[in-house]
């Protein structure tokens, strides 16, 4: 039998080692999963993690995709990480992402076909505002009525998806689209298009925004009193109140910030790679970003690395689907396993694993209760 002893201070080694170990364990467990599906596990793992970047056949297409996918993941994840550090659990970034995209597209379509440099900045504001607004619903409900922000924000994702479907088939449908669902193609509206900044790099303005967001978050958490209060509230809520932190203000701030970041990600996506509002516009970035945030240890730099890795699994997953006929769900399971292993391994940074019958310092209360 194994037993767990709480460490006096969390292990620094395991704090950094767990993400790497989790990735390795996911590869092993994923390989077994692929083998059970009758595929060659080594080939599948290579297709997911290696070929998108280095194979001559695929890399020219896949490499730029890395930044395309990593941009929104990182942008959403840094926003979420601020709230997660404060113990405020926004699980509904997917919904805020959708509403951000809808608002941004709405701004663009309202101006269509006016050519003005003002349109794009207004879309950015619209996207951020939309995400912020959608996140304010759980924030206000939590501060006023003490509802659980996890449930409210999650359920609002499904409301947002309904709104998206209504927009794509109804009020935002392309009037020149011969009745097909989907809005106008924003890439054909130069004032609103979010094109690649350098051709064939995959870097569009969303990537720039993600970079700025990472920098902003890093400074907020490391240098600013507000970031200190965020972390204090997450670690010791009573001490935070003693330090003068108003919990309600923090809820509004964290949810609002993460919502605005997710809304921005939606804006850059709809004006860029997605080109238009469609029924299936959202690709799960908002949920995957939760994995990115935790895999990156809620640290801005870690989130950049984790965002690139998860982007790779998206691209490699598509490749594996295409080349090996893997079901699409296999890749989702793969991403899910990653979070699972990560959270499970986190036990190691706070606890020491020992064999039983080697008793050590225990808390007397555990024994009695």
């Amino acid at each position, binding site marked *: 039998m194994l037993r767990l002893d709480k460490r006096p201070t969390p292990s620094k080694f395991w704090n950094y080692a767990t993400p790497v170990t989790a990735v390795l364990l996911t590869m092993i467990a994923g390989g077994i999963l692929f083998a059970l599906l009758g595929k060659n596990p080594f080939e599948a793992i290579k297709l997911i993690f290696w070929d998108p970047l280095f194979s001559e056949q695929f890399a020219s297409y896949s490499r730029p995709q890395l930044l395309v996918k990593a941009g929104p993941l990182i942008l959403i994840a840094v926003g979420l990480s601020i709230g997660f550090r404060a113990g405020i659990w926004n699980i509904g970034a997917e919904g805020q992402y959708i509403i951000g995209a809808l608002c941004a597209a709405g701004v663009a379509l309202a101006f269509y076909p006016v050519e003005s440099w003002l349109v794009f900045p207004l879309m950015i504001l619209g996207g951020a505002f939309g995400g912020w607004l959608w996140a304010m619903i759980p924030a206000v409900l939590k501060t006023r009525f003490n509802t659980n922000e996890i449930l409210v924000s999650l359920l609002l994702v499904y409301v947002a998806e309904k709104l998206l479907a209504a927009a794509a088939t109804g009020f935002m449908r392309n009037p020149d689209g011969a009745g097909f669902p989907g809005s106008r193609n924003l890439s054909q509206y130069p004032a609103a298009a979010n094109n690649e900044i350098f051709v064939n790099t995959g870097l569009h303005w969303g990537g720039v925004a993600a970079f700025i967001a990472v920098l902003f978050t890093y400074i907020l958490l490391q240098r*600013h009193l507000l970031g200190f209060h965020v972390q204090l509230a997450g670690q*010791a809520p009573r001490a935070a109140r003693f330090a003068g932190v108003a919990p309600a203000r923090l809820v509004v701030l964290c949810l609002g910030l993460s919502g605005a970041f997710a809304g921005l990600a939606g804006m850059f996506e709809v004006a860029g790679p997605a080109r238009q509002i469609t029924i299936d516009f959202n690709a799960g970035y908002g949920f995957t970003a939760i994995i990115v945030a935790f895999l990156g240890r809620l640290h801005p730099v870690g989130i950049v690395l984790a965002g690139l890795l998860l982007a790779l699994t998206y691209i490699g997953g598509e490749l594996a689907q295409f080349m090996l006929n893997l079901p699409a769900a296999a890749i989702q399971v793969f991403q899910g396993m990653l979070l699972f292993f990560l959270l499970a391994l986190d036990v190691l940074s706070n606890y020491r694993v020992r064999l039983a019958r080697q008793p050590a310092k*225990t808390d007397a209360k555990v*024994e009695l209760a």
Partner: protein
Amino acid sequence: MKPPLLSIKGLTKVYPGVVANSDVSFDIGEGEVHALLGENGAGKSTLVKAIYGLIVPNEGVMEWRGVPYAPGAPSEARATGVAMVFQHFSLFDAMDVAENVALGMDNPPPIRELAAKITDVSHNYGLPLDPSRMVGDLSAGERQRVEIIRCLLQNPQLLIMDEPTSVLTPQEVEILFRTLRQLRGEGKSILYISHKLEEIRSLCENATVLRHGKVVGRADPRQESARSLAEMMVGQSLHTPSRPAAQPGKLLLEVQDLSVTSPSAFGTSLRKVSLAVRAGEVLGIGGVAGNGQDELLGALSGELRTTPESIRVAGEPVGALGPNARRALGLLCAPEERLGHAAAPDMSLTENALLTGAYRENLVRSGFIGWSKARDFAEKIILRFDVRTPGAHVAARALSGGNLQKFVIGREIMQRPSVLVVNQPTWGVDASAAAAIRQALLDLAQAGAAVVVISQDLDELMEVADNFAALNGGQLSAPRPVNGLTMDQIGLMLGGAEGGETDAAA
């Protein structure tokens, strides 16, 4: 000759980096009340945990009536006849007394039978307790009775009590002692852990003194003075806090009809609390925990808001202000709970220095943190208050209770408060650190601050306070000068609403 009830021979317990017990030997006879004395960290807890089967020693043996005794788990210890009342209660507020007792037993009888037994035992031993009451509604003294009765139901031969009186009023202590003497009269043995020397002198016939894990002395406490016992414990002569008498200055803290609803379901709301403290004055507020101490501190610190006029600092109404606005006016506080309230356990001492010192110490410029200034401030506290730690980068939870307490009290004192409110400033702190903290509080008052000390330790309040008031059921008695106050009068002030039950038991 009959072997002693429990004989401990050469017991040693080593934790990584620390020797908690080193070659400890002593005997407990049948029907003996044996005191285990020592400062915090002297190894008392480790020793009793070994006796109770919570840990296994590295070396040494124990014998129970001459037979080898090596409990691998508390259930084995209980089966042998050892029971333990812990310092911190393990009770569930939302369950009644009988259910709580059942939870701690190895083979609980049906609840109705158990309730009858509880009523029986509680009357036999003079500890009145209604088995159907919710534990959340009980006073600290009554909660302890739940724990004691849980032990007595198992008919133990040896009862271990860890700091049992730290939460009791003097009258409750008397009741407890009567029970313990009755148990001794029945031939049962008691291992009594405490740092309250007067109690030990009145109750115990043998004492073993531990220091740094070793036995440094054995004594008959009845033959020793409290001072000689204390010096045996500390290993040096003790410094008694002192200060010259001073004329009280102008009114700095004024609380008028303060009523606050407790945010917690099992908390105590404050009802029309009024007090006034002048510059240079120390007001001691006594009372058993759970009578509104946390709420009073919260209302003064700004964590709980009230009407502006109910609290005034130097005439300025502050009742509706938040903690930082009050700090700006010179009202500083140090809460009781060190880990999680006064300090964030996983954060470094530098970060914890920033926690309350951000504005008064100018550690923040337009929202941005000056980390090197914060570290300097933390290091200044560590230096001046003799906090034993490798450095300011260490996490708060890695410090011992006494050292962290010195840090959090020091952090507030270093910010030159005009009013300082502290709750349980020396709880769980060793004698020399406690003396240092009390001296620092007195020096602060001497320098012209108004100081409020909320404490359960009456000896401490008698030592530092000019005036004494008792908090009971959320109401504060009128303050009275400490000079000339007798223990009986204090007991009556503390008793308040609980007086009825105490009398019934007497």
